[in-house]
C-alpha cells in the first residue's frame, strides 16, 4: 500500500520490574490492512496493545497514529482519533443491555448536545438504530435486550466487536477475539473479522491489529505478521514469508505451536 502508515510503533520498551515485556518493539500498519501479532504466552503481545491503546505508557519509544505522536495521549483521546479496542478479557458494561452497550459507543462518537440533557437515551433512535445494525452484524440482534453480564462468553466477545464497530474506527486493536470459542463459533467469528476488515458502505475498512493464537485464523486473515518472543520482534513481514521462516518455525510455530 502506498502512502504513510496509519500506525507506527517505534522502538517501544516497557519494563515490569526487571522484566522487559516489550524490548524495542517496532511495527507499522498501513491503512485498511490486517496485521497479526503472534507469539507464545507472556511474549508481550497484550502489553504492546495496551501501549497502543494508551492504558500503559511506554518507558521509551514513540507511537504515532496518522502521523501524529500519541505516545502521551489518554485512551479517551486516542479513541477520539479513531482507535477502537477489544480486550483479552471481554470488557463490557455488565448491567447494561447488549443494545445499550453498543448505543453508548454510538453516543461517545456523537457527543452530548442538547439532546443529551433532554431525551431519554434508552429511547433515542439516533443512537439505537446504528447500535441495532452493529449488533446484527455480529449476530447478536436477537439478544439485544439481554444484560451483557448474562451473555455467554462467546456472545460477550462478539458484543465487544459490535461496540468497536459502532465506534467506526480507523484502527481496531483486537486481543484474541476468538479465544475460548467453540469451533463453529470460532469459524463464524473469523468470517466476521474478514467482513469487518473488508469494510462496508457506511464504514470504511479499518486497519486491524490482531493478536491471535489460532494460526488458522491468523493465516486466513492477516496481510502481515509480526512474531513476538520474550518481548522482542523475532520476525515481521508478509504472512506467507513469516510462515515459511525457519527461525519462526523452530521458535514458535514448530514447537510450542504443535497441536496437541
Amino acid at each position: 500500500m502506498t502512502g504513510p502508515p496509519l500506525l507506527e510503533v517505534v522502538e517501544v520498551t516497557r519494563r515490569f520490574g526487571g522484566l522487559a515485556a516489550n524490548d524495542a518493539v517496532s511495527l507499522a500498519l498501513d491503512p485498511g490492512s490486517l496485521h497479526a501479532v503472534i507469539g507464545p504466552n507472556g511474549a508481550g503481545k497484550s502489553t504492546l496493545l495496551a501501549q497502543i491503546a494508551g492504558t500503559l505508557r511506554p518507558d521509551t519509544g514513540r507511537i504515532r497514529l496518522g502521523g501524529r505522536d500519541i505516545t502521551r495521549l489518554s485512551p479517551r483521546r486516542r479513541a477520539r482519533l479513531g482507535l477502537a479496542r477489544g480486550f483479552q478479557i471481554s470488557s463490557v458494561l455488565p448491567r447494561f443491555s447488549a443494545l445499550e452497550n453498543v448505543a453508548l459507543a454510538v453516543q461517545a462518537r456523537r457527543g452530548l448536545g442538547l439532546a443529551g440533557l433532554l431525551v431519554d437515551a434508552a429511547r433515542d433512535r439516533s443512537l439505537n438504530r446504528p447500535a441495532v445494525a452493529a449488533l446484527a452484524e455480529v449476530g447478536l440482534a436477537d439478544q439485544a435486550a439481554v444484560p451483557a453480564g448474562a451473555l455467554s462468553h462467546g456472545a460477550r466477545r462478539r458484543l465487544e466487536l459490535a461496540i468497536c464497530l459502532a465506534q467506526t474506527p480507523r484502527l481496531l486493536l483486537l486481543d484474541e477475539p476468538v479465544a475460548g470459542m467453540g469451533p463453529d463459533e470460532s469459524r463464524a467469528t473469523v468470517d466476521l473479522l474478514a467482513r469487518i476488515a473488508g469494510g462496508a458502505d457506511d464504514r470504511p475498512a479499518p486497519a486491524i491489529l490482531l493478536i491471535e493464537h489460532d494460526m488458522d485464523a491468523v493465516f486466513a486473515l492477516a496481510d502481515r505478521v509480526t512474531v513476538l518472543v520474550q518481548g522482542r520482534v523475532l520476525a515481521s513481514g508478509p504472512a506467507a514469508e513469516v510462515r515459511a521462516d525457519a527461525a519462526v518455525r523452530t521458535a514458535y510455530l514448530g514447537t510450542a505451536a504443535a497441536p496437541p
Partner: protein
Amino acid sequence: MPHAAPPAPPTPPDPAPDRGPGPRRAWWLIAGGGLALVALPGLLTALGQDFYIQLATRILVYGLAAASLDVLIGYGGLVSFGHAAFVGLGSYVVAAAFHHQTTGTSLFGWTGTNDALVAWPLAMAVSAAVAVPIGAISLRTAGIQFIMITLAFSQMLYFLAVSLRTYGGADGLALWYPSRLPFGLDLNDPTTLYYIALGALALFLALAGHLLRTRFGRILRGARDNDTRMQAIGFATGRIRLAWFVLAAAFAGLAGALDANLTLFVAPDGLAWAQSGELIVMVTLGGIGTLVGPVLGAAAWLTLEELLPELLDGIAAGLGAHWKIIMGPLLLGVVLFARRGLIGLVTGRPAGHAR
C-alpha cells in the same frame, strides 16, 4: 494451537440489569406517597399533632440531602463521605447572610440578606462552587481512597467553620427569624416550610430521575459499571462525574438552606463526618440507587431517632440515652435481610443494584 484456550470467565452472578432509575414501576408509590405527603400537615393539625409537622419537614430536608447523595453512591458508584459538608455549607450561607444583614456588618462590602430568593440560590451556588475543586481532586481517586479524601475535605470545612469567630465558632450561629419569602408567604408557619421542602424534594427527584436517564446520566452509570470501557470508547468520564458531583452538592446546599430555616440554628457539627455517615446510613437503609428509597431511609432514621428515646425511657428511666443500641441491630437487619433497603420491601423488587 499454541496454548489451551482460556476457560470462559464465569458469568457474574445475577447481574441486575441497569435500566436507569425507574419510577415507572414505582409510580404508584410516588403518586400515593406524594398525595399522602400533600395531605399530611392537614391531617396532623386535625389530629392535634401539629408538632410532628416539624419532624416531617426534617424528613423531607434530609430526604433531599440523602437522595442527592444517592445519585453519587447509587448511580455513580462514588461513596462520598463528605456530603454533609455541602449541606452544612448551605446552612452557613443562609445564616451568614442573615447575620450580616441583622447586625449591620458586612463581608467584603456585602451587607447580607434575609431574602430567601437570594440567600437560597446563593447557598446552592456556594456549595456547588466549593464542590468544584473538591470534586476535581477527589475524583482522581476511586474506591476507599475516594471515601477518605472526601472525608478529609469535609473535615477541613468543619474546622474552618469552628475557626470562624464571626459566625460563632464552635458554638454556631442562631437565626432570630427565618428567611423572608415573597407573595406574603411566611416561614414562621411550619406548614409553609413543610410545603416548600416538599416542593424542593419533588423538584430534585424529578430532575435527577430525568437526567439519569439521558445521555448525560447514562455516562455516569456506565462509568460506575466499567470506567475502563467507557474511556476506551472515548468518554470523558472524569468530567461527567464532576458535573454530577457539583449538581449533588448544589442540592445538598439547598437542603442546608432549608435546614437552617427549620432549626433557626447552624453549627459546625452539621458539616462533620458523623453527619455524612448518617446520610450514608439513610441511603443504605432506604435502598442504594433507588433515588426515592433514601427518602424512606431518612424517614425511618429520623422517626426512630425521635421516638426510640421516648419509648425506651418509658421502659426504664435513662434507657433512652442508649437508643443507638437498638438502632444498630435494626440497621444491620435491614442491610442483611432487605438488600434493596426499605424501598425493596415496599416495591417488592428483587435484591440487586441501582437501575
